[in-house]
């Protein structure tokens, strides 16, 4: 039976700091632009080729101001525009053939200091953008 992954233990490491237990959702998109290369002589259908790739990783964190927590880790990165390592594992942080760790060098965009309403958990959805091609680490 093919695996039908239920997300339970996604690991999130930001600049080597493990923020797994502060994260609640992840989206990794490495889509390429769709470039229309339709030419004369076709059969009436547009033709597309993949263009430039872009990597966008969205992670929603619960905000926290504890030592080495979400704010202390992300705030400086959002202010200095430095590139750093981001690693996300579908089933924990231990790489394996059935748990490829998505690893890339990124920059942080879209930091939200506070977000929420009365009585609700303050969440901090942030956007990381790859600065180059990512790798999938399957070596335990």
């Amino acid at each position: 039976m093919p695996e039908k992954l239920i997300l339970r233990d996604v690991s999130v490491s930001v600049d080597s700091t493990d923020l797994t237990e502060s994260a609640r959702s992840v989206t990794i998109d490495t889509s390429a632009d769709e470039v229309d290369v339709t030419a004369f002589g076709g059969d009436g259908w547009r033709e597309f080729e993949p263009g430039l790739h872009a990597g966008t990783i969205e992670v929603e964190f619960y905000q926290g101001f504890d030592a080495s927590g979400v704010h202390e880790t992300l705030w400086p990165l959002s202010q200095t525009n430095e590139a750093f390592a981001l690693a996300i594992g579908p089933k924990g942080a231990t790489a394996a053939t059935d748990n490829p760790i998505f690893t890339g060098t990124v920059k942080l965009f879209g930091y939200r200091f506070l977000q929420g309403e009365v009585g609700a958990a303050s969440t901090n959805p942030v956007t990381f953008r790859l600065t180059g091609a990512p790798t999938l680490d399957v070596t335990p």
Partner: protein
Amino acid sequence: MTTYKVTGSVPYAGHQPGEVFEADLDENQERRALERGAISKSRAKPTEEEETTDA
């Protein structure tokens, strides 16, 4: 190799809080981690030459 201790409340580079580990961290990575208190720098592991000199 440099010796570090995880001083933050969450794991760092696969090492648990309070754990001491050796690594060759990138200069900027080390600076950021030290600044935010994720790790503290311990004494560098002595080289073979230093160990010989000390003996």
